[in-house]
């Protein structure tokens, strides 16, 4: 198990925690010497449960007090208590019991939203302590839902934890398409609307994976539409993402007929195609509203211009693009074209050199805004050319080898002779006064 507890004190930690928690129950209660306060009742219960190793029930008793724990104890103590509870879940031996205990604890943790980060951390530890895939999936989904609810506080933590792991989890747990899609969508919902680039990329990739699954579900289902719309809105809002591969997917294409998100899709299409005029016309109030906060017509136009630049350069491949052509595509003044190019190079979206004398941009590498059939076709042609080149080089090498092999043999022959005979001559010559011939 990836989480281990090593006891350092003489008392059993579960009992100590129970004791501590039980004291909370005493607050506000008048102490009477004779009657059993709820605290002592609680404590005795827990002690018995621990002694009998009925950790499942112990967890359920403790879980009921979680809210009190968080609100009344200090942070460190609360963390400690909850961790001990998590470990108690781990001590439950039977699998289904463990599942039940885990669910109880997870629900208790998710019940309220205060101390969201600590609760999320506790959910993560709970995830870590569980052994089986199914149980972990349940906890993960609960955590995702919780993170989505408390996006502001929990998003960065959650995204750091799950980034890049989703496909691996799907394959490890062997989830069916429906379950996988559910997982992707839940995770994506938790990551929506992030300001930083890695999270947005993760969000987009999760939505792409969810929507590209051949799920038996209905592409018009509301959660699909929500997810797709969320992804599109994120794409529009982010100042650093210029690639989008979602448009061909059926779930996204179905948005066209959606009353609320149809204009949004039209807007995204215009921006992605780099069509500046089209973007201007598509930035209707409805579309902007659907996109949500953070999207202004100006930002959309600049995004469209940058995308137009990238698209033109990508289409040129390894060649040259005339600056006049760029000016036309971007619909900006002539002197501003170079500043756009510089911006693109600075953002590492483009690599090339500007020749202002001839008025061209020599493109070395460019990011493709969309990677569709056209790009695949071009890629195929490039690969064929490369294959041919490599084969030619290999053939030339082989020919060169045979020409040179004879000469090497020639040289080696003489060396061999020298080695065999040279020693004899040397020793002979040392004897003075010898005459030969």
């Amino acid at each position: 198990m990836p989480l281990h507890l090593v006891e350092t004190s003489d008392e059993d930690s579960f009992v100590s925690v129970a004791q501590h928690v039980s004291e909370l129950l005493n607050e506000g209660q008048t102490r009477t010497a004779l009657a059993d306060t709820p605290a002592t009742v609680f404590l005795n219960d827990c002690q018995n449960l621990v002694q009998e190793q009925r950790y499942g029930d112990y967890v359920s008793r403790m879980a009921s007090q979680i809210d009190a724990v968080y609100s009344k104890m200090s942070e460190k103590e609360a963390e400690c208590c909850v961790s001990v509870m998590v470990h108690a879940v781990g001590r439950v031996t039977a699998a289904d019991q463990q599942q039940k205990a885990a669910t109880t604890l997870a629900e208790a943790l998710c019940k309220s939203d205060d101390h969201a980060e600590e609760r999320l951390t506790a959910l993560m530890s709970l995830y870590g302590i569980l052994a089986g895939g199914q149980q972990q999936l349940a906890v993960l989904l609960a955590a995702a839902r919780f993170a989505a609810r408390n996006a502001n506080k929990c998003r960065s933590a959650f995204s750091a934890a799950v980034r890049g792991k989703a496909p691996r989890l799907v394959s490890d747990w062997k989830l069916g398409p429906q379950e996988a899609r559910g997982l992707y969508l839940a995770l994506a919902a938790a990551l929506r609307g992030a300001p930083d680039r890695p999270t947005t990329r993760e969000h987009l990739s999760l939505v792409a994976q969810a929507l590209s699954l051949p799920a038996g579900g209905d592409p018009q289902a509301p959660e699909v539409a929500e997810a797709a719309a969320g992804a599109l809105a994120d794409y529009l809002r982010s100042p650093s993402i210029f690639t989008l591969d979602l448009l061909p997917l059926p779930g996204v294409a179905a948005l066209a007929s959606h009353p609320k998100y149809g204009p949004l899709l039209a807007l995204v299409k215009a921006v992605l195609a780099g069509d500046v005029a089209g973007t201007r016309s598509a930035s209707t109030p409805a579309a902007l509203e659907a996109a949500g906060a953070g999207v202004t017509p100006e930002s959309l136009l600049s995004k469209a211009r940058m995308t137009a630049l990238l698209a033109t350069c990508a289409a040129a491949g390894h060649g040259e693009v005339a600056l006049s052509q760029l000016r036309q595509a971007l619909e900006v003044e002539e002197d501003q074209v170079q500043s756009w190019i510089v911006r693109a190079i600075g953002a590492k979206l483009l690599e090339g050199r500007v020749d202002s004398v001839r008025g061209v941009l020599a493109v070395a590498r460019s990011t493709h805004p969309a990677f569709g059939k056209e790009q695949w076709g071009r890629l195929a042609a490039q690969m064929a050319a490369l294959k041919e080149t490599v084969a030619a080089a290999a053939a030339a090498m082989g020919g060169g080898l045979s020409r040179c092999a004879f000469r090497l043999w020639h040289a080696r022959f003489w060396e061999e002779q020298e080695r065999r005979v040279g020693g004899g001559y040397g020793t002979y010559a040392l004897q003075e006064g010898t005459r030969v011939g």
Partner: protein
Amino acid sequence: MASTVLMPSGSNVSVKVHPVVLFAICDAYTRRKEHQDRVIGTLLGVVVDNVIEVKNCYVVPHNESSEQVMVDVVHHKTMFDLHQKVAPHEAIVGWFATGSELYNSDALIQEFYSKESTHPVHMVVDTTLKDDKFSVQAYTSRTLALGEKALATEFVEIPCDTIYGDIERVGTELMLTGFNDPSPEAKKDTANKSFSEESETLGASMGRLAELVARAAEYVDSVVSGKVAGDPAIGRYLADTLALVPHLARPDFERLFNESVQDAMTATYLSDLLRAHVALAERLGTAACLLQSAHADGGRSNGSDSSTGSGLLTCGWRAGILGLLRGHVFSLRVGCWALGGIGRLLLPYCSRLTTGCPTSVSVECRTAGTWRRVIAVLAVVRCRSLIVAEGSLQKGQEFCRGIVRQRVRGPEGNEGAGMQDVMVMNMPPACANAQCFRCMMSLLPLFFGQLCRGEKAKEGGEPSFSYVRLLGRLAAG
């Protein structure tokens, strides 16, 4: 590995272990004392960003029982100080223990190490090979405390990987290719590990590249034809990679490639040819010297004059032929002179050319009068033909100039000895090259000129002769 643990926010710590550490731990485990179940020790390394790189380790003797655990702190401190002297940048990053699970005493040891470093890493190396797996796990710890009372220590697993340094990777690959094989078949000419072997490796690499390109092209073609749904991420990656390859038209590429291949082949051919001719020349030169009699010191040859003369003639004749063959102007000139019968005139002052073992040459020649230059040149040509390899022209020139200046002034304590001015030129290996001898050839006439002037300045009598003993030593191999 800990793929099942989701890291809580911020602590994206991961551990990278060098193989040396694992070997050391296993070695220590096999050498442990009888009563010990497990070995523990300290881990040394560096922390960069969120990655802890464990580079080194050492064992710390300890004693544990169910009640208590004792660790030899003095030993630990001493070893750490010694390691600091060797590698000051490595710090204590944690500790390791062998075994398959955590012991109760681990918490105490962890606490001890928390004083040595912040957030120590605990590494557990499974030497019992449970499940037929050699697993290495790393943990960080968290203390759970209620108020003042410490309840327990929680160990959270973190991702742990093995990494290879460049040196280790190169060494391993070299060992795998049988470089160190001492068997006689493997003792091929390592000196000849030239174009042929390199081109074989290059050919193999090209083959691999062609295979990879074919595989990628196949995938792309299947996407274009619609058989497979294309993954845009892969497509972008391929497109970016291809953008790195410089695009050349086919005829340009062929021309470029052929030119560079031919250059490489020319260089190889010339160097091998030179080597072959050196061997040939040596044999010829050796044969020539056998035909001359050996001269005692100070004596003049009589009975052996004719043979010596003919020997010189033969030598000169062969030098001439060689010169013709090789197109070396000097040899040609010398050859002609010798052919012209000058050799006979040299009889009283003949030289004794001896050839020692193939790796060293000593030439003694007595020079007199106007023939000193010829003999010197002969000597140098003779020696030059035995020297191969690259070297530094500049170094050679400086060295030679120094010798010339020094010797012209004369060796100390030998003023007026007059008779034999022995100049020993020990050539450093770096100087033993064909270029260097060329420069020497140009300097030697100057040298002899100076010598003779110096000799004439001394009190009269027969102009003394000076020995020039040139000792060229080839670098081994």
